């Protein structure tokens, strides 16, 4: 549980990174959000056997990291942390699809393995860019940008509250876990009955807290609508950033650059 707590505190560190100052940080969140969205759509739109066509897309996260000064190692570790989920999704492909689609020397590579690596590549690309977006913009600003882009307010408010109270909930969970470990006398795993009880208590505390928060909101005139003052401005920088990258994504999607380059080098380009 303490490890979970540390990881949540890490989300706070991502928020700290968003507070840094670079021209990328200063860009309107909407421009970054839309560009990231177009990037993700473009990356996932490739067919399941594409590998080489995805490689040039690494230019986007690499450029963002280089220009913003975000710690690449930190983000790489975060991507590695969630990579097992992608492996879990893709692991059955080599078993289901055994048809050999190309050979490296005498080694036949099945379509399943190609699609496996394609999923992993897409996962690394999309997750790393989403993380960079949070580190460049901050979760709250991303939510507000979503709101400005027309996402329903209740959804945005849920996201904002989720982020705000994630830390409080984690603190409570960590305190309960500590109280358990102090009386567990060296036992390493929580037995099922105790775990259910801990989760139940956490749920009840959460409900209590939600009621108190609602009272606090009512006391300050809450009528079902969340109002905020936010001045966001799309200028020429945002326009150039968004259009420039989007055009590159479409270009990379339309032409498989590594294949073209390979053909050029080997003289088969005609």
């Amino acid at each position, binding site marked *: 549980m303490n490890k979970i707590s540390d990881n949540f505190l890490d989300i*706070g560190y991502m*928020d700290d990174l968003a507070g840094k100052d670079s021209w990328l940080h200063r860009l309107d969140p909407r421009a970054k959000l839309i560009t990231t969205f177009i990037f993700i759509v473009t990356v996932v739109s490739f067919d399941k056997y594409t590998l080489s066509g995805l490689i040039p897309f690494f230019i986007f996260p690499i450029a963002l990291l280089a220009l913003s000064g975000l710690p690449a190692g930190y983000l790489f570790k975060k991507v590695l942390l969630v990579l097992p989920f992608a492996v879990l999704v893709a692991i059955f492909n080599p078993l289901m699809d055994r048809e050999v689609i190309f050979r490296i020397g005498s080694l036949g590579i099945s379509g399943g393995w190609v699609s496996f690596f394609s999923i992993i590549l897409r996962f690394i690309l999309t997750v790393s860019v989403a993380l960079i977006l949070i580190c460049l913009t901050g979760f*709250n600003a991303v*939510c*507000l940008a979503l709101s400005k882009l027309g996402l329903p307010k209740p959804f945005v408010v849920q996201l*904002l*509250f989720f*982020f*705000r*109270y994630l*830390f*409080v909930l984690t603190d409570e969970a960590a305190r309960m876990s500590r109280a358990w470990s102090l009386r567990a006398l060296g036992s390493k795993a929580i037995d099922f009955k105790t775990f259910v009880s801990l989760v139940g208590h956490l749920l009840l505390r959460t409900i209590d*807290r939600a009621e*108190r*928060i609602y*009272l*606090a*909101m*009512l*006391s*300050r*005139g*809450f*009528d079902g609508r*969340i*109002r*905020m*003052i936010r001045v966001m401005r799309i200028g020429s920088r945002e326009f150039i950033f968004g259009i420039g990258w989007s055009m590159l994504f479409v270009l990379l999607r339309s032409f498989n650059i590594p294949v073209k380059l390979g053909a050029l080098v080997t003289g088969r380009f005609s």
Partner: protein
Amino acid sequence: MSHHIVEAIGLHYTYPDGTKGLNGVSFRISHGESVALVGENGAGKSTLLLHLNGYLAATQGQVRIGDFALNPGNLNAVRRTVGMVFQNPDDQLFMATVFDDVAFGPLNLGLGKDEVERKVAQSLETVGAGHLSQRPPYKLSQGEKRSVAIATVLAMSPDILVMDEPSSSLDPVSRSRLIALLKTFKHTKIIATHDLDMAMDICERTIVLHQGQITADGATTGIFGDQNILSRSRLEKPLRMQGCPKCGNTFSHPTFKRESK
């Protein structure tokens, strides 16, 4: 009638599970008074506070805020008049940044952008938290959270401040700062607290609750000096009235004299 007056007339409240929260509570708090609400855990302090803002509706009896007899029709007006600071600032600070949190109330009042910004700056300045404006609440210390929670209420320009355990979980320096800050407010103040020393510092009047009933209502020094009242309500004398463990002297002791100046 002044809009700073709070009056409870024969308040009864029973929780849905049948627990009696209040059992015939009546009092009248006048313009500018600072009143401490003390009593053991479960005496009904928080229940009473929740009636003053209309969160709980009395099973029997009435609450009057100035000219309003509190009812569902005037809840908004009453909540504008009575600002409530909750016991746990994490319950009160729910927005993404301190600025957004303090601006939440004024925006709901329908104020314009410039006016809201002015109110936010003014409220944060008053509690000495102007520099925290862009910080997310989860990164503040407990003392800072408490100050900002008070600013969120001040930004609504209430006439009456209601506070539930404002000094709980504060370190000594933050507690002293809070007391100094509360002393500067000219509002009518109702403070539910276990911190009897703080009550002595801020409130000239104290109401003692015991099992949902008022067992004493009068001058703070008089009530805290009456061992019978305190024992009956499961309270102890404030530290400064307990006297020196060596000589037994209280206010006459030079140390206490110095502090009381």
